[in-house]
C-alpha cells in the first residue's frame, strides 16, 4: 500500500494537472457550447415573452404521428387528430354552447369544402355538391374525381372508412357515382339517420391528380408516398414537418367555408414525457399541453399564467363483464359487482371530483340518454344480496386493465378493495396493448376496464360497435335478441322520436342484463396558457384547431 502511494505520488502532478485540465476543459467546452447555443436560439423564449401578440400557437403532443395516410394508419390518436385539421373534410360538425364550454355539435353537420350534402326523398341517395375553385396545395382543383378516387381507395383499403361505411349501407365503390365534375352521389343500401355523422368523419379527400403521379403497378394507391407526405387542402396545410419532432401548420387561405382558421400558424411539438410538457407550459414555451397527467393538471390549476379548460366529455369509463365466462355469466354476480363499485370514491380519488356519475351505458350527452339505463349505486348490502341470489359466497376473477394506464390502475385498486368486501376476489392483471388486443379478440377476458368515446354520437353507432353480436368493442360477448332486432330496425328508422323510443327500450334491457359496470364520465381537462381561447370540445376526442387563438 505504501509503495503504491509513493509510486503514485512521485509522478502524479504532471498527469493530474494536465489530465484534469484536459478533462475539465472538454467538459467545460461541451457545456459552454451547449449553453451558448441554447442562449443563441432564443426563439422559444421570445415566443414565451411574446404573450398575446405572438401569432404562432405552440401545442405539445405525446407522440409523432406514425403515418400521414389516413386510410392505412393504425389506431394513432395524434395522427387522427392531425388528419382532422389537414385533410379537406367536405362536411363537418358545427359548434354549440354547453354551459361555459363550446362543443362540437353532432346534431348539426354543415358543408365546409362542399357546397351541400343532401338526401333524396327516399334518404337512400345522398348528393354531394362541391364548391368550385377549391384547390389543393398543388394547385389542382378539388373535383368529383378526387372524391371518387378517395372513396375507391378507402374501399380498397378495407380499413377504417370501409368499416364505418357499412353502418350506413355503403359496401362497395360502385355505390359512389360521379355525376359531373362537381357532383357525386352516394347510393346507400338503406336510408340511415347516421349518414351525416358517418360522412362527417369519413368524407376526406386526397389530391388524386398528385397521387396518380406516385402510384405504381405494385402500389396503385400510392400508399408509400402518402405515408410520408402530408395531405393538403384542409383547414391547415403542413408548412414543415421535422420527423419525430415538430409539425408546423399554416392556415389554408383557400378554405371556402365557414369558420376559417383563426390562428395563422400552429406549431405542434412532440414531448412524450408529461412532466416535460408541464415544465414547458409553465415556462411559456408551449401554449397548450395535450398529454398531461391528471395529477399534473390538478397542480396546474393553481399555477400562475396557466388556466385549465374543463369541458364535459362523452368519454366513458366502464368495466365490461364477460356474460359468457364464469363467474360473470350469472347476472346476479354482475349486479353484485355493479353495487360493489365505489363510484363516488373513484370520482373523487382518481379524477379529483372532475367527472360525472354515469347512469346509463349510453353516454350522458348522447341523444337518447336515459338515466334508467344503469340503476346501480355503491351499496354493499345490495351487493351481498345479489351474491346470495346467485347462490355464491365468493367468486374469483382477474380484472384486466392497460399496463401503462395510471388512471385504470387506480380504479382497479379501488374496485378490488370494495369488491373483496362482498366476496368478489379480483386479481389485478395489467396487459400490454398487443396482448390485450389478442385476448379481447378471443373474448376470454372475464372482467376488464375500458375507456373511450365513440366517433359517432348516436346510440345506433354505439350498438353497432359495442352491443350487437360480434361487434368489435363488445368485449362482454354480450348478445340479446331484442337488442339485435332494435339495431336492425334502427337502420331504417330516421324519425327522431321513433329512434328515441328504441333507445329507451335498449337502456331498459341493458339495465336488466348489466353487461357493463358504468363507472363514470370524466371531464376533459386541458391546461393552457392564460391567453389561449377558442377551445371547442370535440365529441370524438380529436381536436379541431381552427377555432383556437393565442390572444384573449
Amino acid at each position, binding site marked *: 500500500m505504501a509503495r503504491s502511494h509513493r509510486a503514485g505520488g512521485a509522478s502524479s502532478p504532471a498527469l493530474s494537472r494536465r489530465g484534469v485540465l484536459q478533462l475539465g476543459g472538454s467538459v467545460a467546452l461541451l457545456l459552454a457550447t451547449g449553453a451558448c447555443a441554447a442562449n443563441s436560439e432564443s426563439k422559444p423564449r421570445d415566443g414565451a415573452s411574446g404573450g398575446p401578440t405572438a401569432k404562432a400557437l405552440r401545442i405539445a403532443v405525446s407522440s409523432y404521428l406514425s403515418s400521414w395516410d389516413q386510410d392505412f394508419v393504425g389506431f394513432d390518436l395524434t395522427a387522427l387528430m392531425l388528419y382532422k385539421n389537414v385533410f379537406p373534410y367536405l362536411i363537418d360538425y358545427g359548434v354549440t354552447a354547453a354551459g361555459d364550454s363550446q362543443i362540437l355539435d353532432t346534431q348539426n353537420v354543415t358543408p365546409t369544402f362542399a357546397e351541400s350534402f343532401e338526401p333524396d326523398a327516399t334518404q337512400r341517395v345522398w348528393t354531394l355538391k362541391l364548391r368550385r375553385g377549391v384547390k389543393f396545395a398543388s394547385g389542382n382543383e378539388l373535383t368529383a374525381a378526387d372524391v371518387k378516387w378517395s372513396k375507391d381507395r378507402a374501399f380498397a383499403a378495407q380499413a377504417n372508412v370501409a368499416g364505418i361505411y357499412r353502418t350506413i349501407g355503403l359496401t362497395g365503390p360502385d355505390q359512389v357515382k360521379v355525376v359531373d365534375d362537381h357532383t357525386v352521389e352516394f347510393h346507400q343500401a338503406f336510408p340511415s339517420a347516421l349518414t351525416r355523422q358517418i360522412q362527417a368523419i369519413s368524407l376526406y379527400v386526397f389530391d388524386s391528380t398528385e397521387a396518380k403521379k406516385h402510384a405504381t403497378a405494385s402500389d396503385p394507391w400510392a400508399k408509400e408516398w402518402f405515408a410520408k407526405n402530408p395531405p393538403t387542402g384542409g383547414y391547415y396545410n403542413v408548412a414543415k414537418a*421535422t420527423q419525430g419532432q415538430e409539425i408546423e401548420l399554416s392556415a389554408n387561405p383557400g378554405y371556402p367555408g365557414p369558420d376559417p382558421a383563426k390562428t395563422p400558424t400552429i406549431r405542434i411539438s412532440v414531448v412524450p414525457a408529461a412532466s416535460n410538457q408541464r415544465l414547458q407550459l409553465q415556462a411559456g414555451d408551449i401554449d397548450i399541453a395535450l398529454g398531461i397527467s391528471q395529477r399534473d393538471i390538478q397542480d396546474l390549476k393553481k399555477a400562475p399564467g396557466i388556466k385549465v379548460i374543463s369541458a364535459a366529455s362523452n368519454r366513458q369509463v366502464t368495466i365490461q363483464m364477460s356474460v359468457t365466462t364464469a363467474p360473470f355469466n350469472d347476472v346476479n354476480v354482475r349486479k353484485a359487482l355493479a353495487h360493489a363499485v365505489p363510484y363516488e370514491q373513484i370520482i373523487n380519488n382518481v379524477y379529483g371530483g372532475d367527472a360525472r356519475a354515469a347512469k346509463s351505458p349510453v353516454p350522458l350527452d348522447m341523444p337518447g340518454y336515459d338515466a334508467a339505463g344503469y340503476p346501480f349505486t355503491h351499496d354493499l348490502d345490495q351487493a351481498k344480496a345479489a351474491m346470495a341470489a346467485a347462490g355464491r359466497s365468493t367468486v374469483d376473477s382477474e380484472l384486466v386493465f392497460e399496463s401503462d394506464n395510471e388512471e385504470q390502475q387506480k380504479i382497479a385498486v379501488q374496485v378490488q378493495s370494495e369488491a373483496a368486501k362482498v366476496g368478489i376476489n379480483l386479481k389485478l392483471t395489467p396487459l400490454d396493448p398487443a396482448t390485450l388486443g389478442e385476448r379481447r379478440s378471443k373474448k376470454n377476458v372475464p372482467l376488464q376496464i375500458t375507456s373511450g368515446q365513440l366517433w359517432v354520437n348516436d346510440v345506433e353507432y354505439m350498438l353497432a360497435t359495442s352491443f350487437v353480436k360480434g361487434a*368489435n368493442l363488445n368485449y362482454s360477448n354480450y348478445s340479446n335478441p331484442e337488442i339485435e332486432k332494435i339495431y336492425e330496425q334502427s337502420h331504417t328508422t330516421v324519425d327522431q322520436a321513433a329512434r328515441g323510443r328504441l333507445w329507451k327500450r335498449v337502456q331498459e334491457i341493458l339495465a336488466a342484463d348489466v353487461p357493463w359496470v358504468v363507472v363514470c364520465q370524466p371531464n376533459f381537462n386541458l391546461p393552457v396558457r392564460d391567453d389561449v381561447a377558442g377551445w371547442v370540445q370535440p365529441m370524438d376526442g380529436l381536436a379541431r384547431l381552427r377555432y383556437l387563438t393565442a390572444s384573449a
Partner: protein
Amino acid sequence: MRILRFVARRLLQLIPVLLGVIVLTFLLVRVLPGDPVRTILGQNATEADAAAARARFGLDQPLWRQFLDYLTGLVTGDFGTSIQSGAPVGAEMALRVGPTLELVVIAVTIALVVATVLGVWSARRAERPADHGIRVLALVGNSVPEFWLGLVLVLVGYSVLGWFPAPNGRVDPDTGLTPLTGADLVDAVLTGNGPAIASAAAYLVLPVLTLVIGVVAPLLRSVRASALEVLHSEPYAAAAAHGLPRRTLLYGYLMRATLVRLPSLAALVFGTAIGSTVLVEYVFSWQGFGQWALRGLLYRDYPVVQASVLVIALCYVLVFLIADVVHAILDPRVRI
C-alpha cells in the same frame, strides 16, 4: 495484414450469428402473446376486416412462407412494412438509427475519456480523499436511474437555470437543417449549417450528460483497478526504480497496460448505453431507435421488432469486433 485477416474471418463468422438471430427473432416474436392486427383496427372492424388486414401484411400465410418472404426481403434490403404505420420499416429505421447512434457514440466516447483520465488519476492517489471522492461519485452515478437523472437535469438545466433548450427534440426546426444521416450534429457539420450546429450541440448536452453519468462508473472502476495493478507490478516498479522520465513511465508503462482491458468493457458499456437510450429518448423527446423499437415490441409490430433486434445484434457484433482489434493492438500478448 494479420489484423485484416482476423477482421475478415470475424466478418465471415457474422453470417451464421446473424442468421441465428434472424431465425430466433422471427420465431420468438410470434410466440409472444399478442395480436398485432387487433391494435390497428377501428371501432367498427369485423372479423373480415381483421382477416383483410392480416392478408395485407402477409400474416395469413403459413409460418414457413412468411419466413421465406422475410428472408427474401432481407436479401434485397427490404425489412418489410410496419403494421402500425403502413410504412416501409427500412425507411423508418433509417430515420431512427442516426439520432440514437449519435447520442450513444458521443456519450460512450466522453465516458471513455473521463473514465481513463479520472481512473488513472484516482489510482495514483489511491486511498487519498480525492480517490475516495471519485469512487463515491462514480458509485452515486451508477446508482441513479437514468430516467430520474434525466428529469432532474431537465428541471435544473432547462427549467431553473434556463441554460438549455426545452426537451422537445434534437435541433431547432427553424435552423433549416437538411437531414442526411439522421444524426443532427453530423448533418449540421456536413451541411455547414452554423445555427444548426449550435442548436444540435445544445440539445445534445443534457441527454449525453445523462448517459455519461450512467455508464462512466463501471469504466472508471475498471481503469482504476487496472492502473493499480500496473502500479503494483514489478515491471512498473523496475522502470520507476531505473529513474525513467515521468512521461515515459506514464504513457509507456502505465497507460497502455492499464487500457488493455478497456476495449471489451467499453463494448459492453456500448450495449448498455443502447439499452439506456429507451428511457433517455423518452425524457428528452429524442425520437430515436430505442423508442421506435419499444413501441414495435409493445404493439407486436413483427417487422419492426425483427429489424430492430437484427440491427442491435449487428451493432453488438461489430462493436465487439472493434474491441477485439483494439485489444490486440494494445496488448502484444494477444495473438490473432
